[in-house]
């Protein structure tokens, strides 16, 4: 349904700030009727990829096909079958929610009866009845997000593209949106969403791609990706909050322990140690080795592979570490200017 081939996109050429390679030979295929997740830290290229799919941006190189249509030569055709829910909710504070949806319907050329009927359906589906006739400026974040989702669904798109649809929402609102997305997928809509929440992608996605620095570094279903790692995961916390020196010492101790495949220091979680082990039996060996070396143990937990472990395996750091590394480098003003037309 969506085919992206060798997309490249660079921002900021010849300007004050250094250029940024947002996408670097990025390729992806999303099957029809699939709920597909793009997972990666901020700055990985998720939003850029989605904006290209939504025809808001043209790639520097590469091809984009949606529903068999070339997005570069037939952008209007792509827009007709696609609904886009952007990361930042853009609403007109002066209009009511109903008026905004009516405007949306007119922009998609729905006739009046179809438009009004569809608005009524979506109000019921997304539970907006109590506030839909109030001005958008009075809405909470959750209300705005639901309204934005309704706007994206108004014309019954074959493809729905969502950029971080649940960021900043409470758990109840998030679960409600997840339910709607699952229903859409079950009824045949292709859903492509980006997220930096592991649990969201793990819970929703039939297939996912993990992005780093504008490239796909892993792709498959959650179970395929986790299964490919093999082994179990052990999280060791020497203390509640350790330091780099202590964590490095313990890592050096455990790295060569039989059955341990990999040891990574998780700086975002108090310098805990994430270990990849061959099987559950290794855990006892670890305990013995730590006791023999008189290393205190605050917590030792065992689990199966998670998507964070998939990310860790592919990049050498956890998703949280990646987020923290990027957090200080981001320029929200520059990003907002990039999004301006």
């Amino acid at each position, binding site marked *: 349904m969506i085919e992206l081939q060798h997309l490249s996109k660079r921002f900021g050429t010849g300007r004050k700030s250094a250029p940024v390679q947002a996408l670097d030979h990025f390729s992806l295929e999303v099957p029809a009727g699939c709920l597909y997740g793009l997972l990666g830290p901020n700055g990985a290229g998720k939003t850029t990829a989605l904006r290209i799919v939504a025809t808001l941006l043209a790639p520097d190189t590469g091809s984009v096909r949606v529903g068999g249509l070339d997005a570069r030569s037939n952008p209007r055709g792509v827009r007709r079958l696609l609904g886009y829910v*952007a990361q930042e909710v853009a609403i007109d504070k002066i209009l009511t929610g109903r008026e905004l949806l009516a405007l949306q319907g007119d922009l998609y*050329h729905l006739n009046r009866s179809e438009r009004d009927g569809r608005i009524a359906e979506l109000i019921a589906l997304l539970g907006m009845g109590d506030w839909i006739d109030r001005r958008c400026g009075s809405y909470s974040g959750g209300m705005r997000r*639901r309204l934005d989702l309704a706007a994206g669904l108004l014309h019954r798109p074959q493809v729905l593209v969502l950029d971080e649809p649940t960021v900043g929402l409470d758990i109840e609102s998030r679960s409600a949106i997840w339910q709607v997305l699952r*229903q859409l997928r079950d009824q045949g809509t292709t859903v492509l969403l980006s997220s930096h929440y592991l649990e969201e992608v793990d819970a929703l996605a039939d297939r996912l791609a993990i992005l780093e620095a504008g490239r796909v570094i892993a792709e498959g279903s959650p179970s395929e990706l986790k299964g490919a790692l093999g082994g179990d995961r052990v999280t060791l916390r020497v203390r509640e909050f350790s330091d780099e020196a202590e964590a490095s010492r313990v890592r050096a101790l455990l790295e060569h322990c039989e059955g341990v495949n990999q040891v990574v220091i998780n700086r975002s979680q108090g310098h805990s140690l994430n270990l990849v082990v061959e099987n559950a039996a290794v855990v006892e060996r670890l305990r013995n080795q730590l006791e023999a070396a008189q290393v205190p143990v605050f917590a030792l937990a065992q689990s199966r592979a998670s998507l964070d472990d998939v990310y860790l395996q592919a990049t050498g750091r956890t998703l949280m570490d990646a987020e923290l590394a990027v957090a200080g480098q981001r320029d929200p003003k520059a990003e907002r200017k990039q999004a301006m037309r």
Partner: protein
Amino acid sequence: MTSASPTSLTPHRDAAAEPSALAEIGQETLALTRRLFLQLFRRPSTFVAGVLQPLIWLVLFGALFAKAPEGLLPGGGSYGRFLGAGVIVFTAFSAALNAGLPVMFDREFGFLNRLLVAPLRSRSSIVLASVLYITSLSLVQSLAIVATAALLGYGWPGGPGLVLVLITLLLLVFAVTALSLGLAFALPGHIELIAVIFVANLPLLFASTALAPLSFMPAWLGWLAALNPLTFAIEPIRAAYAGTFQLNHIATDVVLQAPYGSLTTVSCLFILATLALGLFLAIRPLLDRKLT
């Protein structure tokens, strides 16, 4: 949220006849224009300020020179009558100069992206909606000033004169709207756009014949005023307010004695029309780049 029946979300399209391109463009444009008017009705301060400010100018400036000797001004008459045309034009000009602000805010806060992902038949409907809105707003505000000027005893242009006033204002509004929209897409943010509007507004007013005739000005200012688009709108309207205005003389009666030559009403309107067309053509590449 409710657990609605699956059919509510089923993607499908009825096999209805495709509407024509004109119908789709009409639907898009009307919807976008309606939005702008809804904003105006719910936040009327812009409209009120747009009428109040010129009214205050008309009353205060008119009173300021109320005792100026008659015969001092070209064509005779009171200063209030002289000033009326200038204030009418300035009202329309100010409104049109702000045409780009809604577009700028839409750019900055992401609403324009919402419009651009929609399958608009023509993205010109975004521009057309702004033009329709600002033209209507400017004309209504200007007509309010025309009515007030009449109540203050500053004259009434009569039927044909009123038509000339409307045509002149339309051409000026088109030209200035094009300029404002171009600035809205060229400048990086609303602060810069407001700064340009702020800087341009009063100097353009003072360097025109809105407040004083060319004969009162030094040579350098006279040249500036004689090239100022506002002057090409003010003088035909001033002529329409003169008691001797005749529609069949608009191509022959001189309304502006400029340093470079004499201009009739038709000449002035031709210049405004050329300016409007030229500005829209000039901003077209920018709009194409930003909206495609």
